[in-house]
């Protein structure tokens, strides 16, 4: 049981570091997905731990919300790319000035 949660924590941490270090907006987005997946693993593991299906239902909802989020996020990345010709998160800094 513990090993699943530890794996989930490791994957979540890797996703976190990826979001902080990578510059390409798509890769940053992939790291967010990795973090969501790590959480899902914890939910499913805890569902088995407690012997009811609420954890699996929650993981299912997380997947649905992640799908919606990916659709919107990628559309935003594409819109930014069309106007600024770049998918780097450093270039989208208009609010800074």
């Amino acid at each position, binding site marked *: 049981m513990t090993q699943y949660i530890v794996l989930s924590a490791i994957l979540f941490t*890797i996703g976190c570091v990826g979001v902080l270090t990578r510059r*390409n907006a798509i890769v940053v987005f992939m790291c967010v997905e990795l973090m969501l997946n790590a959480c899902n693993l914890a939910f*499913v593991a805890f569902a088995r*731990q407690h012997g009811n299906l609420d954890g699996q*239902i929650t993981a299912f909802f997380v997947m649905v919300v992640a799908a919606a989020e990916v659709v919107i996020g990628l559309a935003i990345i594409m819109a930014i790319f069309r106007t600024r010709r770049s998918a780097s998160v450093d270039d989208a800094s208009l609010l800074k000035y």
Partner: protein
Amino acid sequence: MTFWILAPIMVAAALGILFVRKAVHAALLLAVVMISLAFLYAVLDAPFLFAVQIIVYTGAILMLFLFVMMLIGVDAADSVVETIRGQRVMAVVLGLLFGSVLVLGISQVTFGVVVGLDEANAGGNVPAIANVLFSRYVFAFEATSALLITAALGAMVLAHRERLTPKAGQAELAAQRMRDYAEHGKHLGPLPSPGVYARHNAVDTPALLPDGTAAESSVSRVLAARGTVRSAPALADDIDDVRRQIGDPTSMPETSGKAGAPATTEEDVQK
């Protein structure tokens, strides 16, 4: 057992996402993580989530990532310049701290006896999930439908681009071409084809004008932008070379391009 095989693969693939340069490779590594995760769901008595993980995540979401990457350009590599000094080092240190705190915290918790899903899954996992989903979580389920419709609409709004000028049809293009000819003297006919001189007929070889200079408009603009167009003076030298070889009938001219194809025609030799 399955866990101890899959966990190292997952961690290695996830670490790979941090280090690979190309976004496509990151997407493929993420696919490895997600498929392994699906098998872990199967081990954890969640066959429904196993299927959903493979169909929705690796099937739909990752393909969406790849599609967008195709539109944006696969070679959009990461920039190595740091906008905040030392950000990467700080991020890695913070990540290590965070991870070790999490792992230490988890290792100190005792979870007790694993109850297992045998009882909950007694009538099958999918009917059991359906029972819970459509009774206790039915409002969340309905809210999800609203969320999905909003997401679809939002994607359409964000990806839509309004056409500001009417689309130019064939008539407008022809009129524009005639106007260019009348005002700037621009050539009316089609562009010259590339490399119609002697030995070269590759698309990266500009056609030569009668005075030996290259016709710029004969080469695709894409090739010119990439800088792979062969230079005209070099080609002119080549022409002299060929001419010298033709003038000397004892030595057969070198062949180039297609193997065995002579570089001269019979007419040239007779001259």
